[in-house]
């Protein structure tokens, strides 16, 4: 905590005001929100059962979070049965160390987009060990080159206009390219193909993990996850324990709801990985290390999740599919993108940032930017009550001494004034009764 805890609010508030008024971020987000509205309309028209599907996913997630510890054990047993090694990392530090030991140093590492690896700072950790690490999702690559953090769960570079991306590619990749989206995509493709083919290690996250079969499931459009998880000789999956669901069919239901609420009628690819590559083509004897990875490792990250799963209100945050739909409806997000957030962007991101060890002063300030309009809950496929979690967290942080002075002043003055008013009102009522 800061020496003068009252000082922090203006700093973060000013940061948001500056972003909204002095950058092209609102324009970039405006374009994305407009596109999202068109996409989601198409999805709901084509798949009118999307809300029912989401209700099913809600039930799956409720069960899974209530049985999180048992599912971690079951998933690990299943992975081991599939000859993949499984690790449970209690903290971010532990997760980084496990992956660091598996990767070593002096390696070329390709990574698929994963919020949990952002949460633990894995790329930076592996780079410090002397590895060359590349994000292979285009949005993540843009963010990596810009030295920034993702500003949306699905579209990490949503805050950047094409003009800014072209400028960035020129500066960081030395490639002169017009601010034309297809030309920018082609430039990234050329750059990343080379890295993907030569990589020693591939890392991905997961959209869901099936405990019964020990499988990692991912959704993607770019094919970078396929390539990152299939081409390098070593594959490491790093994912949060909250992604585990009991059965493979549950995981598939989770995936379908996720892509629909992202705004895709269908993603380009769904990947299911159960083990390292293998063959039984000679004498029907299973041998690992066929054309794809020779080894597969799964790192399940706790980092506060198992503890928050016990909280009566905040545990709902663990149901989040990370589809990012809520952000397109959030009034503050449309002005400042993921700068409204901390480790994780957006309203629900503040809850995640809190239990994964984010900056409490920043989180507190951002919590009060929420207008409690409930649009996020309305849009959320699982009807996660983020506004309720936000007010709960506000109250928890007030008790810890984190509250903007302006808020404290309003609250205390109102409470004090009303105390007097109610006393006087009571006297007046008694007087009237006597009359």
């Amino acid at each position, binding site marked *: 905590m800061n020496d003068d805890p009252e000082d922090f609010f203006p700093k973060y508030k000013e940061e948001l005001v500056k972003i*909204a008024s002095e950058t092209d971020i609102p324009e970039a987000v405006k374009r994305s929100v407009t596109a999202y509205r068109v996409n989601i309309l198409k999805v709901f028209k084509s798949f009118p059962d999307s809300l029912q599907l989401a209700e099913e996913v809600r039930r799956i997630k409720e069960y899974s979070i209530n049985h999180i510890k048992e599912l971690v054990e079951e998933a690990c047993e299943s992975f081991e049965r599939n000859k993949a090694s499984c690790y449970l990392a209690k903290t971010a530090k532990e997760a980084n160390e496990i992956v660091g030991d598996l990767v070593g140093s002096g390696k070329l590492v390709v990574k698929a987009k994963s919020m949990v690896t952002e949460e633990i700072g894995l790329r930076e950790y592996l780079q410090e060990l002397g590895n060359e690490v590349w994000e292979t999702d285009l949005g993540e690559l843009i963010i990596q080159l810009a030295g920034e953090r993702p500003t949306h769960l699905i579209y990490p570079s949503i805050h950047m206009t094409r003009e800014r991306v072209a400028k960035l590619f020129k500066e960081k990749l030395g490639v002169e390219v017009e601010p034309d989206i297809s030309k920018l995509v082609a430039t990234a493709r050329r750059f990343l193909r080379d890295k993907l083919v030569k990589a020693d290690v591939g890392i991905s996250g997961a959209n869901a993990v099936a405990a019964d079969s020990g499988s990692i499931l991912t959704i993607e459009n770019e094919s970078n996850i396929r390539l990152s998880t299939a081409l390098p000789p070593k594959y490491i999956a790093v994912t949060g324990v909250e992604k585990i669901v009991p059965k493979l069919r549950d995981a598939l239901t989770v995936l379908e709801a996720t892509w629909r609420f992202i705004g895709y009628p269908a993603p380009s690819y769904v990947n299911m990985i159960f083990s390292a590559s293998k063959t039984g083509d000679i004498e029907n004897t299973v041998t690992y290390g066929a054309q794809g990875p020779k080894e597969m490792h799964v790192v399940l990250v706790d980092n506060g999740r198992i503890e928050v799963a016990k909280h009566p209100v905040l545990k709902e945050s663990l149901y989040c599919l990370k589809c990012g739909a809520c952000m397109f409806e959030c009034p503050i997000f449309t002005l400042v993108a993921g700068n409204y957030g901390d480790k994780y962007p957006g309203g629900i991101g503040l809850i995640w940032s809190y239990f994964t060890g984010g900056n409490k002063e920043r989180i507190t300030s951002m919590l009060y930017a929420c207008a409690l309009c409930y649009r996020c809950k309305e849009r959320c496929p699982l009807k996660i009550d983020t506004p309720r979690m936000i007010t709960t967290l506000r*109250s928890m942080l007030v008790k810890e001494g984190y509250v903007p002075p302006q808020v404290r002043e309003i609250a205390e003055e109102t409470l004090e004034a009303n105390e007097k008013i109610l006393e006087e009102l009571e006297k007046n009522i008694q007087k009237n009764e006597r009359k």
Partner: protein
Amino acid sequence: MSQEDKVLYYGSAYLRKIGMQEIDEASKKLLNKLGINYMTLDPEPFGLEWIPGLGYPEKSLALMKKFNELLKKINPCCVASPLDGVIYMWNAGLESMGLEPAVRFTDFSNFLYDWFMERGKPEFNEYSKKAYLHYPCCIGRKLGKGIYAEKILALLKMIPGLVIVETVHPDVQIGLRPPWAWSPCALSSMQILFPELHSRALVEELRFDFEAHKPEVLVTPCARAVWSFRNAFEKENVKDVEVIHISELLLKTVRWVS
């Protein structure tokens, strides 16, 4: 002491605090014009309903409990308020804190609608304008009930000539959800803590709907929303849409009362 034939009109003190006394006056004039027997509190509590959300639930709940006990003694037929945050807190909010309101709290326009249904509709002057109906999130999305919104819409439909338009949110367009579920928020709390961002965010909230409908008037039953919209429109130079509270609109249009 029983006042069960009288409605308790609540919200004047808070409306004065935010400079919206004209809505308070319009609401009271309307009650008088309609011949509705009402009472007010002296002194009147204010703003308590917004304090739990700021992170002080226990202290505000203690005061609301006391207020609730006093309401039991006053015993009005119901409490009607043009502040929809009040309705939310005295219904769902209070319930979530394990407290039952001593009397029914209802939105002012809903109260009027019920009154008209029970005692007969007044006659209205024509009001030929295209009005964008803002359903406050406090009595729509937040409560998750359509009943308040339905009555608001029915009440406005009594005014001849008034063309009502609603949100064009994608879910509403394909009938997946009713308009009250997606009506933009007036972002009034943002106006208090983040005034520098408030007006831009609010105009952006209304962008799709205003582009689609080009309304002449924005009408809402929530006085705090009026406060927020008027300030934002002034800052952002939105001159072609007038913001009007339902009480003001009804006061203008109610012609004859039986």
